[in-house]
């Protein structure tokens, strides 16, 4: 895979020949208007759904191998 990756990286190097002076990065189509959500609780209280696909859960919790800090 390493060889393939360097092949891909070599291929994308062609972008270096593009003059990007004073060009801003693209941010979307520029047509969506920013929207904010009202500060209202409309979600949550769905523990069964939240845990429904957990590969391993104990009571109300997800689990992971013990983390030692």
């Amino acid at each position, binding site marked *: *895979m390493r060889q393939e990756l360097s092949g891909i990286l070599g291929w994308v190097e062609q*972008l*270096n020949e593009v003059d990007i002076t004073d060009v801003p990065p693209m941010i979307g189509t520029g047509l969506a208007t920013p929207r904010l959500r009202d500060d209202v609780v409309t979600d949550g209280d769905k523990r069964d759904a939240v845990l429904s696909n957990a590969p391993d859960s104990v009571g109300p919790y997800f689990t992971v191998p013990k983390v030692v800090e």
Partner: protein
Amino acid sequence: MHDLTLASARKALRERRLSAIDLTDHFLAAIKKLDGDINSYVTVTEDQARAGARAADALLATGNAPSLCGLPLGIKDLFCTNGVRTTASSNILRDFVPPYESTVTSNLLADGAIFLGKTNLDEFAMGSTNMTSAFGPVTNPWRRKGTDVSLVPGGSSGGSAAAVAAGLALGTTGTDTGGSIRQPASYCGITGIKPTYGRCSRFGTIAFASSLDQAGPMARTMEDCAILLESMAGFDPKDSTSVDRPVPRYEDALERGVKGLKVGIPREYRPDTLPDDIAALWDQGIAWLRDAGAEIVDVSLPHTKYGLPTYYIVALAEASSNLARYDGVRFGERVDAASLDELYEATRHAGFGEEVRRRILMGTYVLSSGYYDAYYLRAQKVRTLIQRDFLNAFDTVDVLLTPTAPSAAFAHSERPTDPVQIYLNDIFTVPASMAGVPALSLPAGLDHDGLPLGLQLIGRYFEEETLFAAGRVMEKAAGFTHRPALHAGAFA
């Protein structure tokens, strides 16, 4: 029944010449008969489809049925469907059952559509051959004249394209990140449209590359796509990138014609390596539009050649982050391990296929400290230049006409081993994705092997209606009535 389009089936249902249950049973039987060979469905939801069809018949009897009432569709297995397994064709989501419905499929359900099942795709929509699916490759229903070699359907919406082509659904949903609707539509001889970025909600659709992913319909005709897109599209406050604009009645635009329309022919889409069949078909398409009253204009999109490398940097960077959530903790497959880091590693190694891992690795690399400016930031700036190319072109023309893909479908065994060669399949579809402008592919003819070839129309932001009108003119001129070797009708 196998020759029905979505529009003709809708008419037959409304006129009670056909029942929704018979229609659904027809498709379920066709799937049973053919899909063992094609593998276009990952999951078939037979019971739900029948229950839905019976309910639809009851509604149709009242004469008050919604727009898609009783019409059987296939849903790309990237759209989360409440209570129905949604896999993204990945082992990591092999048994994932979402407790929620994507906005696009909610819209279709609200309009009365019947879901036959979930269609196969390249794993996490990453590919253009449908060979990266954890549920096996999809076989293109088409064959080269006189051979029985199995061909790829294109990708990533390969299952959706093959299902429509083989008559295993009236229409399907697809998603398009760099050509994933248009390229398989071209390979399978059907119609597909990627609408403007922000036209269909991304909520509940499994993400590949957030700034590019866009859902759209795949069906046999322009009219069918117009009907489906009207249902799928719409503003969704749950998706911050969704655009708040009314959805037009796309059907009404179909017969507008192209008189006076300016059609741009971008010269950069005609490389020396373009196969003669495709070049000739493109010229044919130009002639159709000119004959129908359009004005043909040569245009230049100078940054076209940078589209692909730009696309891969942006898409893979976003994908590497979007796929971080598959860690074996809250959902999906898990490989147990003694430590948290080992759990992540083992789970993700076992859960993701090679192409997905390659792309995550690449995406991680281009975002890493010290490389961000050189790769991701530069690519997003080049993306602005690609967007400007389109905006400049649309100052003088109304639509652009190009080939959809640089080749017809090829055999699974002919798939190049070099990833860059595979990526080149998307060369004509990627620029429109980068700019977020709408684009469709329609079947325009067959190559010398008898395989379908598509042409692409690209339009201004939110001018899907113009695409449908121009597409309809070409559709009529092409008179594409060919059927693939594997087709429900062939067994009827």
